[in-house]
């Protein structure tokens, strides 16, 4: 089942912060985050495994709450280069039907203006 992302779209000024949420109705083993710029392939940002670990990538970080089956992507002091569509991808546990099947949310369109 497809994870649900919110919000669907965000408009920011350079330097502002944003949070993108990803929720699943199924037990998760991992959450991936990718960014896709218009006309380009999706690019990996980070992966979070069960355990609630928070990871960071430049000014972009993410958290994973396994119990709530939720992940959040935090973008701080946004830059023009952050514009694009952000996708979360979720994967279930070994032995389940969703194992190895990275299912993506519908995407969040982030636009950063000067």
């Amino acid at each position, binding site marked *: 089942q497809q994870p649900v992302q919110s919000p669907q779209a965000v408009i920011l000024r350079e330097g502002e912060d944003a949070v993108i949420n990803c929720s699943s109705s199924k037990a998760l083993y991992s959450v991936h985050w990718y960014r896709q710029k218009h006309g*380009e392939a*999706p690019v990996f940002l980070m992966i979070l495994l069960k355990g609630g670990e928070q990871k960071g990538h430049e000014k972009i970080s993410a958290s994973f709450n396994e119990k709530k089956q939720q992940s959040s992507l935090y973008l701080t002091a946004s830059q023009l280069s952050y514009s694009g569509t952000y996708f979360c991808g979720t994967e279930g546990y070994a032995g389940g039907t969703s194992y190895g099947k*990275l*299912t993506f949310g519908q995407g969040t369109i982030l636009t950063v203006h000067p």
Partner: protein
Amino acid sequence: EAGVTQSPTHLIKTRGQQATLRCSPISGHTSVYWYQQALGLGLQFLLWYDEGEERNRGNFPPRFSGRQFPNYSSELNVNALELEDSALYLCASSWKATNEKLFFGSGTQLSVL
């Protein structure tokens, strides 16, 4: 190091025809994934191959099929094309089966007329 390569870049077919899309993973990667990206629908999981075997497939009809060759390259076949099959088809690879970042190719834009 070469990235994931897909061919052709664009493919135009008519309804009822068959389409074959090809993907070469990054050297050393054994897992290949196929995704369909239709306008406004995000990335829909199609197929996952690892070590030459189909490991999982998404909710697509059987006319979507594929295979992985001994050199780990992969082919996606779509039979009896329908208008709604028009989409960008993305291939991705990873060096191990699961919980590893995916490297995406630039995709094949399939248009069904």
